[in-house]
């Protein structure tokens, strides 16, 4: 059975990959890719917490993170 901890560990791993990318890359376009990974990792975390607590706030937060990408 998948618990909330599984999802949070996955979020942490993805966030770590994104951080490695941010520190490693020097090209601007590649840097943008890494920041997208960071935002997506956090989105998974929000949605997972919102599911396991039966609350919609996390889902709304994830929804409001999405418009930042085109703005960037």
């Amino acid at each position, binding site marked *: 059975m998948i618990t909330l901890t599984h999802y949070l560990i996955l979020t942490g791993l993805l966030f770590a990959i994104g951080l490695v990318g941010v520190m490693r890359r020097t090209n601007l376009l590649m840097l943008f890719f890494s920041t997208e990974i960071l935002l997506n990792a956090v989105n998974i975390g929000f949605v997972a917490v919102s599911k396991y607590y039966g609350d919609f706030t996390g889902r709304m937060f994830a929804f409001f993170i999405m418009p930042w990408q*085109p703005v960037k």
Partner: protein
Amino acid sequence: MYETVAFYIFSILTLGMFGIVVMSKNALYAMSALAGGMIFISGFFFILDAEFLGVVQIVVYSGAIMALYAFGMMFFDTTRDVSEKMRSKKIAYTLSILSAILIVAILCIPLVSESIEASYPAIENVGNIQMVGLILFTKYLVPFELAAIMLLVAMISGIVLASKKMDEHLAIEEDECEMLKEGK
């Protein structure tokens, strides 16, 4: 059972894809892997009963953002390898691992505390997408409008930045036309 299998398959695929994005030297491979990873992430949203977010994820990321980056990539030479000069490997890796542990700790704090109640609990007999609409247009109406204004500002500033050179080109063309007329 299916949930477990799906979770592990999607997590392995996502981690692999994003690993390619971070480590690949070829910019084109990195972009394709990023598009794949985004679609696999939408799989997590479907497992977590957030169908609306999953669909939005596919449409926004792999549809809009990837097309945008594909156009952006035309200004770079994609056949050339991206050169990465790491000044200090140790510091970068230690910092990233430390911050990952910090993030896990931050996200685990709600598990420790027990007195957490849902402020907007799901109502029975109301669908997921319907519920999203209900909350979005009542409690979160102001952030929604602000997001719209933010997108408008970004669009206008983009046009302004791009159109500075457009004026010059237009002026040059007009000059050329006038010169041609005078020549006649």
